[in-house]
């Protein structure tokens, strides 16, 4: 099995689906001949043809709108929005149209569309190339929101998303494209090749939407994470010498509530970490759910470790990013709480 980084795994997923299903096509800014600014669609136009992977005008609302029309026709469009920070011009089409079409037409029209978009910080992208807008989409009924954390999951989840008959917002943690970044920005860059999840089958396979993965079993506390924070969480557990049970949610909507509750009922403690801003972040929803479903098992207040409620500041990347030190401290606090 070849070792792939996350970009290669995503590329492979799209390659597999373009080959399997003539109704799959890819559109977005710079995705065609050039292969995308992050190279995720490299070679796909050459291999599959001009009309199957092509460039669009710079108009995210238009890109998503035409994909909705294509979906209504019966195609399975895969849209790339170059950065999640650029997705807002498409917000009306996503929220009022893609998310609602099945419901408002009583199942007459559907939108089997996948919107891929790189998100998250850690690349000195400033406030317009670093955002984590997942909670904006999890708040919208009718959308699914998926976040992979490894090459293996990225491919399997993306194939599931493309095959899904509902619109999926597929958030790619761009800091993980080339390696399992654990938040230690001052250390040498890690490569995917040394990570077991870089072993990615070349052919078709799926990772189901709505299933979390326990990436580390533990007894001390439950850490709920997704995307880059999965790797940060593992590093923090090591640093804090905490026997944390680390759960990679992988899919925020639909959410694997059973895996979450089983773990918190076992450990009695829960930390939620995400890069996104804190107020009304997805962590708030997770905290509320854990409280509702595990209250009598909790031994300590639920902690949230998140980005600050400011725009992402260019000069203070690592003060903003909820790295392993902050997370390790939270682990100590939660463990001390009796």
């Amino acid at each position, binding site marked *: 099995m070849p070792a792939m980084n996350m970009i290669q795994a995503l590329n492979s997923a799209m390659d597999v689906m373009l080959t399997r299903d003539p109704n799959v096509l890819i559109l977005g800014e710079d995705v065609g001949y050039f292969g995308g600014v992050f190279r995720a669609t490299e070679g796909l136009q050459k291999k599959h043809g001009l009309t199957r992977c092509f460039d669009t*005008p710079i108009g995210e609302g238009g890109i998503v709108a035409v994909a909705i029309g294509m979906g209504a026709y019966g195609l399975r*469009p895969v849209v790339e929005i170059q950065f999640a920070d650029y997705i807002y011009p498409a917000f009306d089409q996503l929220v*009022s149209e893609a998310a609602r079409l099945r419901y*408002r037409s009583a199942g007459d029209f*559907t939108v089997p569309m996948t919107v891929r978009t790189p998100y998250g910080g850690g690349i000195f992208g400033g406030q317009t190339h670093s955002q984590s807008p997942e909670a904006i989409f999890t708040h919208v009924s009718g959308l699914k929101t998926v976040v992979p954390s490894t090459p293996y999951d990225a491919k399997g989840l993306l194939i599931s998303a493309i095959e899904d008959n*509902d619109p999926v917002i597929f958030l790619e943690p761009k800091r993980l494209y080339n390696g399992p970044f654990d938040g230690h920005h001052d250390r040498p860059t890690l490569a995917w090749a040394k990570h077991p999840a870089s072993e990615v089958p070349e052919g078709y396979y799926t990772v189901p939407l709505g299933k979390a993965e326990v990436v580390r079993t533990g007894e001390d506390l439950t850490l709920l994470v997704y995307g880059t924070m999965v790797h940060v969480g593992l590093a923090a557990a090591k640093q804090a010498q905490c026997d944390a049970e680390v759960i990679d949610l992988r899919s925020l909507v639909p959410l694997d509530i059973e895996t979450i509750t089983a773990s918190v009922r076992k450990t009695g403690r829960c930390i939620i970490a995400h890069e996104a801003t804190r107020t009304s972040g997805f962590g708030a929803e997770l905290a509320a759910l854990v409280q509702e479903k595990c209250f009598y098992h909790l031994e300590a207040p639920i902690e949230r470790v998140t980005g600050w409620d400011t725009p992402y500041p260019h000069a203070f990347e690592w003060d903003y990013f909820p790295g392993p030190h902050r997370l390790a401290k939270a682990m100590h606090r939660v463990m001390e709480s009796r």
Partner: protein
Amino acid sequence: MEAPLKNRKALSLRVPEPDTRPGDSPDFSAMQIPPAGAVPRPDPNVPDHEMRDLAYALIRVLDEDGNAKGPWNPHLDAETLRRALRKMMLTRAFDDRMYRAQRQGKTSFYMKCTGEEAIATAQAFALDRDDMCFPSYRQQGLLIARDYPIEKMMCQIYSNECDPLKGRQMPILYSSRADSFFSISGNLGTQFPQAVGWAMASAYKGDDRIAASWIGDGTTAEGDFHQALTFASVYRAPVILNVVNNQWAISSFQGIAGGEESTFAARAIGYGLPGLRVDGNDFLAVYAATQWAAARARNNNGATLIEHYTYRVEGHSTSDDPARYRPSNEATAWPLGDPITRLKTHLIALGEWDEPRHTAQTAEVVEEVRAANAKAESHGTLGSGKTPDICTMFEDVYEQMPWHLAEQRQKLGH
């Protein structure tokens, strides 16, 4: 402290205002109305730059005496014209009945298309049945022209137990895939670029169906309008993009959308698309323009923007009172007449119709609507308690119901 003297003129902000307001006499004297038959008809396949004048013209076929004139005359047979006339009359009778139903408290909301019946009807006649329509909220004529049961439309309006949309949509936001009629959105303009995407998909698949979409003059200011034109032009999408310029966007006259600076049809020119400006109250002109644009699209020559110049005779909706912002008799002064009367006059001029038949048909469509309404009302009206099954409220959010929706359905007690 006084500001230092500057040798520059003070700027002034212009806010467009219509020529007349309530209390004034309606005045359409500034309107340029070329005689019927005066505008040339290019071959549908010529490059767009050879027909830019059409965006500033007004394609008209029917003259004041009901004669069909000039190169845009589609030469339809009398039987087709009589069917179309009946569909337009049925649409008007339907509107009148549903407006009354709203006033009687049987539903929350209604929107009439009075004065604009020729547009949807002629376009439904000119398009094929499987060409995909992405309508706005004033194209009920499309469904009626495609023989969609009016009783079913009423059930949707009443959100009753037979509502095909299961009580989920406001009145008139119909959807019918079987009739190639896309789900209407309450958000303006979103369907315009979606229609382009559908048309791109049809071209991608080597299909032969085309798409059409409709917005109003006001909605041309939305970004969706411009993205639709950009994408349609770039990918040469087989789509007909219609702007129904009925002069009013709720209370804002078309000048607020920029209609005084240029025509809406002329927006096409910057995108390298043909723009046709058509007398929207002239059934034959609308039919001919649509047929022309459809031929162009089917020939892989891409999209056309059509501005239908018409007048919204009634309020925007049942929630609107146009007497508060325009002369109450403005509709009667509208120089392009009434579309039903004009087609009727044409048929009479052809010797294919007469007043007694027209009077009889008027009664006939009213009766057809009355009978359908009685059936629809037997399935409930809004608030009557005869609703779709409440369990269906949680369905179709996703293809499969996730646990959280199942849990919420239980909490509601179902």
